[in-house]
């Protein structure tokens, strides 16, 4: 997905001279050709997330369209107030694009895990929040919204799902509707595990790539059913539950730190987000 990010920005920059890339010393090698093509629109500012955001806000004040990119926990949690005030409160547009979200850096431990970012960004006034599950989804969303004049958070993943979906900004996707009383809801790359888990189950499946604004209309359409929200990050649960009349169970996001290492698959299994565990949770609800 990171490669898709770079190629999308590269493509847009060819026709939009207002695009500026700000890196926090991450993905620098990936953007080598961007730097060569647009040397005055590429800045690896260094390891200074607060200033990355503030400088991005300053660029936006001059009519430029910054893409601000570094690792998820650092570009959201460390500089939360800069995002809140310099971008959101000042009513300035800017594209924050993170990598290493959720447990992409599983082996690095809790300092590098990031499962609060979507929920935190969602709380900020003005902010739009995207959790694309594939490079295709990322491309659609960036092209649609990068110049909206609003601050936006795009969350990349090193483990995209392989499902080819046609997506539209602000719209959820009905993956399966079998008229069931249980609707499994998920977002982003975890869709792969959810599909595997639910392939033999009589459940509806809804998928979201846009966490904010959430597709209220779609949620309302299924609000007569029970929702099972499968997530490896906070954010989706809160977005779904803001809708009136929703009855939901959330599964997957841990309370406390995730004190284990290993691979993404190891952590997901530990959190019971592997297909077998998700299936067991869904079956448990179906039997109720």
């Amino acid at each position, binding site marked *: 997905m990171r490669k898709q990010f770079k190629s999308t920005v590269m493509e847009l920059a060819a026709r939009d001279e207002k695009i*500026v890339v700000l890196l926090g010393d991450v993905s620098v090698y990936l953007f080598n050709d961007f730097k060569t093509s647009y040397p*005055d*629109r590429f*800045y690896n*500012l*260094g390891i*200074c997330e*607060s*200033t990355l*955001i*503030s*400088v*991005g*806000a*300053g*660029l*936006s*004040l*001059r*009519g*430029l369209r910054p893409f601000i990119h570094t690792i998820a926990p650092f570009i959201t949690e460390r500089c939360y*107030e*800069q995002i809140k*005030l*310099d971008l959101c*409160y*000042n*009513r300035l547009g800017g594209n924050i694009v993170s990598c290493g979200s959720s447990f992409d850096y599983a082996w690095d431990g809790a300092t590098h895990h990031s499962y609060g970012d979507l929920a935190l960004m969602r709380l900020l006034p003005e902010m739009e929040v995207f959790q694309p599950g594939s490079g295709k989804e990322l491309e659609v969303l960036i092209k649609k919204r990068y110049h909206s004049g609003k601050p936006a958070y795009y969350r990349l993943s090193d483990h995209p799902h392989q499902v080819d979906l046609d997506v539209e900004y602000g719209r959820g996707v009905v993956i399966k509707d079998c008229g069931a009383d249980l609707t499994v809801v998920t977002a982003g790359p975890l869709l792969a595990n959810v599909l595997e888990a639910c392939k033999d189950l009589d459940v509806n499946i809804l998928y979201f790539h846009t966490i904010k604004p959430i597709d209220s209309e779609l949620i309302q359409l299924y609000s007569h059913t029970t929702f099972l929200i499968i997530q490896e990050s906070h954010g989706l649960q809160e977005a779904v539950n803001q809708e009136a009349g929703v009855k939901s169970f959330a599964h997957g996001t841990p309370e406390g730190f995730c004190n284990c290492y290993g691979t993404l698959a190891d952590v997901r299994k530990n959190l019971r987000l592997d297909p077998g565990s998700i299936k067991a949770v869904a079956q448990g609800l179906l039997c109720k």
Partner: protein
Amino acid sequence: MNDICKKIRGDILKISHSSGHGHIPSCFSVVEALYSVYSTMRHEPQNPRWEKRDIFVLSKGHAALAHYCVLAHFNYFDLKRVYAFGAFGSDFGCHADRTKVPGVEVSTGSLGHGIGVAAGVALGMKINRAKSRVYVLVGDGESNEGSVWEAVMVAVNRGLDNLTIIYDNNRSQGRGLQLKKPVEIFKAFGCDAFEVDGHNVDMLCQALSAESERVKAIVANTVKGFGCKTLTDDHYQWHRRSPSREELIKMLEELDEKAV
């Protein structure tokens, strides 16, 4: 004291008395700096969004009342409007909102933000090949925040010679974390740094106009509450206090006594 700066201090006192709001000692330490910046920079008060204007950012946002009074002096709006300072429905909050007040470029309040945004504006001017300059006024207390020095490092590293930092050295952190030798610190970071009497308009204007090939850092040595003995005698007590009618009369008299 410059007559205009004395008048602006009087406005600050009257509005603070009337509204019950204001950080008067902090406002008084920056009056000459604000007046000098707006006397030096390129701007058109009747056309606040003029494309070729220079940009000023008040990073120490709690001095907003001083900023409003200076903007009113330069005819951005009528001073009468500022008497609604901090009131419900007013455009003039105790920290400024750029979407409400003509001439305010960045909404500030939380410390350590304005300088980073100013660095971004300066970088944006470079990218757009604009000839404008950016001026940012930071407090010495504010400079306890690490984000200030992050921004200085980035500005120096990017060669932002169109950025001028005015450091209000009013020793506000005497009981906390007071930075000693700020000129040396700015120099060590790679700025073109020097100090001036922050209450001397001529010196400030000269420093602001001086050519520089690097990020310029003007350390303005100032006094909290400058111009009023009541304030300078105990600026901590007056940090967020507004004068009563009797106190206002006394302080206006003190301002007159100080007049040069």
